[in-house]
């Protein structure tokens, strides 16, 4: 029934950055896996939990092209995330979902893609990135602009290396001023200003933007300046949630329920929301 989560087995865990961890989870029951495989599309979210502590909402960080498992990446900050972070391979945690809407990647086919992410918001972006890279031939040029406060705060370092090596991906990394290490070879500066230097032409290009609210705000300005129309910019919103299915009454921004009508919105849709409720 509605609030009963799937039991999930922790297969592996990986440290991404100080306090940030990725868990790879596999379904314990075949029927749960079948349900997930049928319903999951990139951009959707879930409630990850441990009985006795509760549930927390994060995106599914793994792509829709790899549905044998679920990966979630989270910062250890409260009771649930601390307990999840302490789970070892073989331990059982829970997952409820997949919920919400998705990035309509089939509408992106034949277009250039510009991914922009800040800090811990790479995980939702990464789900879309791999969903597209796993069917690379369908899309035009792929540019990824990713920034974090410091070099240590960049997540998915192995994958960043992989994207850097690929000649069909243009990866641009940046860290905030003061966050660089002596051997840092990439950009130093905030994402919006770096973006203005490296962004591809807005012609036939879709932008996918995920980050903290303040970064979103300034990056949207930068994209507008670069000539991107708000209909071609996608982002994903997060709010506190308990049910995930439109009943517990807290995740709305204005009349929009993030859990049901989101979490994926175009910039035009976000701009139409009452900004003071974000």
């Amino acid at each position, binding site marked *: *029934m*509605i*609030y*009963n989560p799937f*039991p999930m*087995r922790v297969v592996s865990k990986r440290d991404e950055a100080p306090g940030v961890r990725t868990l790879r989870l596999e379904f*314990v029951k075949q029927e749960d896996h079948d349900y997930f495989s049928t319903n999951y599309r990139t951009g959707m979210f879930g409630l990850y939990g*441990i*009985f*006795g*502590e*509760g*549930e*927390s909402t994060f995106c599914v960080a793994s792509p829709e092209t790899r549905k044998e498992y679920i990966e979630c990446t989270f*910062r250890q*900050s*409260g009771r649930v*995330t601390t*307990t999840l972070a302490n789970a070892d391979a*073989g*331990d*059982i945690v*829970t997952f409820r979902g997949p919920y919400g809407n998705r990035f309509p990647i089939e509408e992106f086919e034949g277009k250039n893609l510009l991914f922009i992410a800040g800090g811990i918001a790479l995980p939702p972006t990464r789900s879309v990135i791999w969903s597209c890279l796993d069917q690379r031939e369908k899309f035009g040029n792929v540019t990824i602009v990713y920034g974090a406060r410091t070099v240590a705060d960049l997540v998915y370092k192995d994958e960043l290396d992989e994207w850097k090596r690929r000649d069909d991906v243009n990866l641009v990394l940046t860290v905030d001023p003061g966050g660089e290490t002596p051997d840092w070879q990439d950009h130093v500066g905030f994402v919006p200003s770096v973006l203005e230097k490296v962004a591809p032409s807005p012609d036939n290009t879709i932008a996918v933007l995920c980050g*903290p*609210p303040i970064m979103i705000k300034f990056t949207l300005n930068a994209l507008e300046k670069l000539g991107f129309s708000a209909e071609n910019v996608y982002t994903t919103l*997060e*709010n*506190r949630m*308990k*049910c995930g*299915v*439109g*009943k*517990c*009454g*807290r*995740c*709305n*921004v*204005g*009349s929009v329920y993030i859990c*049901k009508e989101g979490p994926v919105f175009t910039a035009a849709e976000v701009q139409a929301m*009452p900004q*003071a*409720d*974000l």
Partner: protein
Amino acid sequence: MTRILLHTRLDDCLAAWRASGYSVLAPSKSHELTRFNEVQHASDMALDLVLPERTIKDHFFPQTEPLIRYRIKKHEIDTEEMVPPELKRIFFGVRPCDASGLAIDDPLFGWDYKDEYWFRRRGNSVIVTIACTSADDFCMCTSVQLSPDSTKGSDVMLTPLKDGRGWQVLALTDRGNALLETIPSILQESDAEPAPPASVPVKFDIDKVTAWLADPASFESHFWKEISQRCIGCASCTFLCPTCHCFDIQDEGDTYSGIRRKNWDSCSFAMFTMHTSGHNPRNTQSTRWRQRIMHKFNYYRGKFDVNSCSGCGRCTRQCPVDMGITETLQSISNLPR
């Protein structure tokens, strides 16, 4: 000629219903609080109240309810869903506003994902409503397009007789008809006249209110700060509301065994929307009060084509600082245009 039920036959009625496997809940007093409790005799009932202090919502969406029992061993998890039993229950002496409240919440608990915890309790419950022939200063059903004799959400409608001997009885649904079939010899044909419904003055113009709320410019109006100054964020209004449905999910137990529960929550509380990062989209009492009013009279209408308010007036009647929805909506209705 219509069917009537005499007050003097109410005990026979209760006995017949119990014999048919129903339990009967009616307004009664327990611990100085009037609410719906299971009753055995007509004398247990407090049917002359304008409204009991608590709504029947408590019996469909309880203050706290178990969802899942869990037991965890090292690499195993054992869960059991705590599905509420589909009890045959009669809610007798419900007021039209409380009955409407159930009907207002049905689409919310049913859209897309069905909340069985609500619908299993709804399934075999029969709502026997008594039309209001008296009201108090806080009643406001007529202001939200309902009335003291509204049939919305009811299975059987009882209308008090003018002569005070009982009620005129009208079945409104199959469930209501089935209930009356268990008491054929207790009801009688009569041409006794029903009493007129209570007079409940309209307190604000709901169309003006909803139009103002739907205007995007209203969201950041200074009005919200002024009108919510007195609010102490106690959430009484939400807990006593027949349509407020917001909840939290919490685990009671430890990491070995326990129960996951669904508990009432309220948009009045700062923690309701607080992010882990500390960011809070609704971080002041005025933004929370705005959410409450917008949710009931703008967002909910947009989604389900009905106001999330049945006009019972409890939010004002029982507010410790004498605030409430009525005053806010009156003020909106009176704003210069």
